[in-house]
């Protein structure tokens, strides 16, 4: 410290006296201040939500602060069905299954799968990046945007799967046909009501990519819906994990009922060591 300056207090971080939240108000019992007598979620009585609202209504209320329109609620519900089970070949599901068959504690199966689902490739971080991409581009021409990305991608030769932009690319070298079909089922009722929507832009953008053997990926499908619903990139991370969680756990716990030999263990010759 320079000698002409007065000594400063070293505390550069001032911590709050209380944790703050906008989400839940707990009214304490008169008999015990640790017991909650009544809960209000974003201002609504939780009991009334239980009686009058759906799970998807309440989920969107939780994250957005307001109850959704019926169209928004239906859109999320359709996404949740579309992604309820990524299938036993997705790395996150395989991780949970591998743990399940190897007798990992049951309570770890879902966290294990969700950790793997957190990644930048086919995972939640790709969803967040796709949300950012869509938010930044959806007001531009989808065809022109796709063409520009394809032109840039031509110069890069990548072995294996190529996601030319977060949420869009090929799966095992080809367009993900199932994802394109799911997108139609998830998006169409909404697009019929609102033709200039983000979802319509994403469909048109994906179609343009199809000509180059790229298209919408499941991470992009989720990102498109989240953008349409007004869910921000950081929130999209956990919501994607939440939406995909049922299939991860279902496949993982299924394997726990089987012997440890019920899944393949590769032989020595199937593990090829090639030191650098």
């Amino acid at each position: 410290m320079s000698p002409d300056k007065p000594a400063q207090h070293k505390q550069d971080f001032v911590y709050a006296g209380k944790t703050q939240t906008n989400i839940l108000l707990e009214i304490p019992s008169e008999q015990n201040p640790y017991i909650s007598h009544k809960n209000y979620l974003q201002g609504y009585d939780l009991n009334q939500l239980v009686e009058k609202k759906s799970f998807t209504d309440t989920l969107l209320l939780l994250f957005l602060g307001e109850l959704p329109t019926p169209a928004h609620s239906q859109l999320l519900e359709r996404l949740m069905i579309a992604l309820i089970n990524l299938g036993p070949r997705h790395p996150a599901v395989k991780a949970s299954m591998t743990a399940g068959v190897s007798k990992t504690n049951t309570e770890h199966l879902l966290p294990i799968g969700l950790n793997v689902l957190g990644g930048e490739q086919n995972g939640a971080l790709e969803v967040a990046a796709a949300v950012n991409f869509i938010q930044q581009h959806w007001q531009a021409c989808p065809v022109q945007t796709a063409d520009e990305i394809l032109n840039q991608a031509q110069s890069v030769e990548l072995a294996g799967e190529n996601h030319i932009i977060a949420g869009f690319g090929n799966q095992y070298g080809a367009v993900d046909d199932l994802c394109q079909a799911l997108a139609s089922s998830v998006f169409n009722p909404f697009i019929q009501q609102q033709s200039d929507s983000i979802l319509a832009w994403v469909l048109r953008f994906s179609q343009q990519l199809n000509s180059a053997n790229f298209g919408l990926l499941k991470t992009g499908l989720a990102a498109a819906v989240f953008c349409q619903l007004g869910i921000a990139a950081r929130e999209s991370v956990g919501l994607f994990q939440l939406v995909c969680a049922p299939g991860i756990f279902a496949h993982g716990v299924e394997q726990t009922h089987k012997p440890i030999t019920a899944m393949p263990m590769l032989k020595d010759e199937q593990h090829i060591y090639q030191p650098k």
Partner: protein
Amino acid sequence: MTNTEYWDKRNQTIFNSVGHWQGGVDVTIENKSLMTELMGQVTYMQLHILNATGQLVAKNIADWIEVCFMGLSYPDSRIWCNQVAAYAGDTKTSVVAAAASAILAADSRGYGGSHARKMSMAAQLLAFEQYQQGMPLDEIIRQAKFKNGKPIIVGFARPIDRDDERLKPFAEIQQKLEIEQGQYLKFAFLLSDYLKQHFNLSINCGGYASAFLLDQGFSPDDGYKINSFSVVSGAIACFRDQQAQSPNSFLPMKCQDIDYTGPQPREL
């Protein structure tokens, strides 16, 4: 028809460049025999660094990094990752869930020595390169984000109000282990002196460790891998402390201990 050759080659086959287990015979790790060249010959920390980076470092380097780990994990349940482990103790999870949760909690851009180590090493690497190219320190600092008039540089501030007690042993043990101060550590102290003079900030143990790892030739990504579980020990202690206690006994909160700032009760 799509050309699936890339995936066909890997279907039911793993290609691995780090090691191989030959059941009943030996294990190869980075071309070294675990049974005859590593067990009994190297420390656990040397082996961990070999697995994490592919480099077998000298024992004194691994010993210093082990000392650094000791400084990254205290048995104090106030620290964020330890608090997480204590909550796990409160709900009586398995110890492994507590340990894994604490490691994940410390995978943070704010503290913890894993993700933060990568960020800190990357920042120091860039600053050092710029300094080498002739950029003055004030200009290097100006590029950082500022908060409350102070630059935010990981490794050069600690989010509590005391001196960093680890710096002295870090330096003394480095000397005792006969590890020379390299160019990155010298630069880190130069940067620290500048920050102290102008912003009342100085190097903390993370900044020191980052410079040390750079001096050993590790990349920021290597640092992330080496330090990936560095908080685990203290977290397990905090779990152990809480595990035997009754439910909801770790930092219990009254309803009104939470400051609700959302919408007031409204009709559905």
